[in-house]
């Protein structure tokens, strides 16, 4: 057979549109979004609560996390471990987290058992037992978890970067699950009170995806219609701002690599520059041959991979070069990174814009092809105060990005002379070279 030497032509992908969900409200104020995905045997359900972590009393930060973790330890209807047994009997798994903007619960279950699973999710949020022994156990497990988080170089860098970029008066500057001191101060009464005050149907959203039937309207109402909480609550979301730049070095004696975060305070999806930033981020540190990864990985072999990571919050965001480098090349890698981030002399090109838009819009159908994919992404949009419609409007916004707009956005957000740096590594080997190379690091405990 003849060898095909000619590179095949690529046909442009058809325009793909994220399908509109069925969208309604229950009488108690709970919003419901249902996405029918034919052929998806797993149903994914998320319940997003409008309870930002700024609602936690300052001396017991972590109480939202402990509350969320105790929900599946028993309910009024299924006491103690019988609740988890009932969930697992039908092949369901329940997870979740208390995030800065919202707490969410995620339920995954074979679609054929959805009608049995929804009432269990409703039990967990509306009538958990929240026993003192469960609270104490989760408190102790959370304290152990903090030790593990801080022992991990990459996690430690992430925690420090958040603290370095966001002023301490904002909840988003600190660990979502609370610190050792605040977690230790949480009592069972605190957890019961937090649940009673902040787990409410008004302002909450239920997202259901999978191979659904028309029964879903009835199923949602039957499971959640009876959920009611007296009174009303007005929820305030904080709007963090940026700190002035810092350079921090955190010691991990003997570490063979250093974790780097280099960047600053970013923007959220509601900012008019959001699409511009997505494109610029992809070009500088998203694609395999991005400006950063091409040089630092593929040419220099300094790292397994370096990325410019764009992490939007509900208000504002974090924007940082993120990577792990062997100790001996850290200063050279940082100097190269700072140079590569400077776009004024080397603007984002037409080709880079085209590649970034094609990539982001091209893989969207894959990301939204499963029930889990749809539910998790829509839940995160809802938690950020947006609707599912954002998916389509952002796809259009991306097509309007120009090299100039992308260059301007990243130039504004990451000025190379005003970056915050966090290095987690072997301070004895790193401190002097960093200072000599123009990174005036402060040693942080």
């Amino acid at each position, binding site marked *: 057979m003849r060898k095909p030497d000619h590179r095949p032509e690529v046909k*442009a992908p058809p325009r793909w549109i994220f399908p509109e969900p069925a969208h309604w409200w229950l009488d108690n104020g709970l919003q419901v979004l249902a996405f029918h995905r034919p052929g998806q045997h*797993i149903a994914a359900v998320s319940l997003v609560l409008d309870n930002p972590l700024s609602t936690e009393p300052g001396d017991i930060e972590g109480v939202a996390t402990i509350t969320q973790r105790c929900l599946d330890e028993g309910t009024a209807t299924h006491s103690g471990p019988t609740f988890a047994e009932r969930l697992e009997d039908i092949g369901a798994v329940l997870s979740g987290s208390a995030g800065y903007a919202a707490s969410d619960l995620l339920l995954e279950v074979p679609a*054929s058992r959805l009608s049995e699973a929804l009432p269990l999710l409703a039990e967990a949020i509306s009538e958990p037992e929240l026993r003192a022994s469960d609270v104490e156990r989760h408190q102790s497990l959370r304290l152990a978890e903090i030790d593990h988080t801080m022992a991990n170089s990459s996690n430690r860098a992430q925690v420090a970067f958040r603290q370095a970029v966001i002023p301490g008066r904002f909840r988003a500057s600190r660990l979502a699950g609370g610190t050792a001191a605040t977690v230790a101060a949480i009592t069972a009464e605190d957890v019961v009170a937090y649940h009673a005050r902040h787990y409410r149907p008004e302002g909450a959203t239920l997202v259901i995806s999978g191979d659904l039937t028309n029964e879903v309207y009835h199923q949602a109402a039957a499971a959640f219609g009876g959920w009611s909480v007296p009174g009303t609550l007005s929820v305030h979301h904080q709007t963090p701002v940026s700190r002035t730049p810092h350079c921090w070095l955190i010691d991990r004696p003997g570490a063979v*690599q250093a974790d780097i975060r280099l960047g600053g305070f970013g923007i959220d999806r509601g900012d008019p520059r959001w699409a511009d930033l997505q494109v610029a981020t992809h070009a500088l540190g998203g694609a395999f041959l991005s400006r950063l990864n091409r040089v630092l990985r593929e040419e220099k072999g300094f790292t397994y991979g370096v990325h410019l990571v764009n992490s939007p919050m509900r208000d504002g965001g974090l924007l940082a070069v993120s990577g792990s480098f062997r100790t001996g090349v850290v200063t050279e890698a940082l100097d190269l990174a700072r140079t590569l981030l400077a776009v004024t002399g080397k603007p984002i090109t037409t080709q880079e814009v085209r590649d970034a838009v094609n990539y982001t819009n091209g893989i969207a159908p894959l990301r939204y092809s499963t029930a889990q994919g749809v539910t998790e992404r829509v839940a995160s949009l809802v938690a950020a105060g947006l609707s599912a419609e954002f998916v389509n409007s952002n796809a259009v916004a991306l097509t309007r990005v120009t090299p100039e707009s992308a260059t301007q956005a990243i130039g504004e957000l990451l000025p190379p002379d005003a970056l915050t740096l966090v290095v987690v590594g072997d301070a004895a080997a790193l401190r002097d070279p960093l200072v000599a190379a123009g990174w005036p690091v402060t040693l942080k405990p």
Partner: protein
Amino acid sequence: MAPSDQLNYPIHQRTLDNGLRVVVSPDHSVPMVAVNLWYDVGSRDERPGEHGWAHLFEHLMFSGSDHVATGEHLNLLQSLGGAVNATTWFDRTNYFETLPVGALELALWMEADRLASLPAHLDEASVDTQREVVKEEKRQRYDNVPYGDAMQQLVRLVFGPDHPYGHTTIGSMADLDTATAERAANFFRNHYRPDNAVLTLVGDVSAKDGFKRAERAFGHLPAWNRRQRPPITSLPPLQGVPVLQVTARVPAAATWFAWRLPPRDTPEFDACELAMVALGGGQTSRLHQQLVRNLGVAAGAGASAVPLVGGNSFGLVQLRALPGADAGAAIEAALIEVERLVTDGPTAAELARAKAQYAREWLSELASLDSRADMISAYTTLHSDPERINRRLAEVEAVTLDQVAAACAAYLQPGQRAQLDYQQEVGDAQA
């Protein structure tokens, strides 16, 4: 309706004249297609002195071929809307891209180009750079992470250093150092051949069209004689409880138990896997209930089975101590639970629950085009039977209580385990 009754993914198979096995599974739900290639070579095929080569050479597959420049494969397909990567495991090396269907032909052409011509384009410079990248990967994912060497230690304890499964894919710095362009080229010539590969297409493509495109891209490549592996023997369960104690900078003491199990996707392995779910597979499992919830002697306790095809798989229990405590109480309590399981077997309710959890995880694996394609490649490469993805749940549902009890007694005795203990370095231990 049992979950297994629902599964009916279409499977169309064909073998090209050069031995390349092609499987097409149409799914028109989104206008994309998953291209998934398994090469039947993994870390188990590395000889002593070559540990880490299969994975290092996976990186070199992106370094350019006759018509494709260095890094272009990944970058170009990304820029067309593709999710692209490759991974190496004990039993295989896989390469995959999921992209808009209009780019399918290009993706196949690029895959065929590197299969046909990669060895001729290897040079020492690209080997040197990717060696550094892989060493950074080893530092980032294993050496600089608490307990990061646990899997390396465990497989060595369970299988011995010279066994094909006695080392992990990342290998050793010393062996990575001895790789050269010539050695890489020989490795590719031995293992990267149409008759040692499976190509799976899942997505918005018909069977006829998929086969036609596969033939057009790969059909011209010459056939080799299929490589024969040395005969594989199954090792019997361990005796005498080998123990390794490691002192390291870790946030808490931790212990693993590990067992030799039967090879994957046999009734005996399935029985062992279901037993591991009952023992430590979730919140209702015995280890979590007893160690974490009732006794409060562990910060975490779980169990899992790692399926492998070459004579044995292995099974694990992981115990994490509470801050400042040693793992002694957790180990003692866990051994009581293991003993209780091998003596009495699981209850009917536990087995039903374990099967329900298995079913959800299986259906989740098949939910997306890309991971479904990977499963099809797996069952074609390892079991010569891609249709089995539709039957697996029925196989697992058919496992009986007696089979699980028998498998526990045969393979999961406390005396058949190996044990790995991490203790905190003095100075790191904080009460």
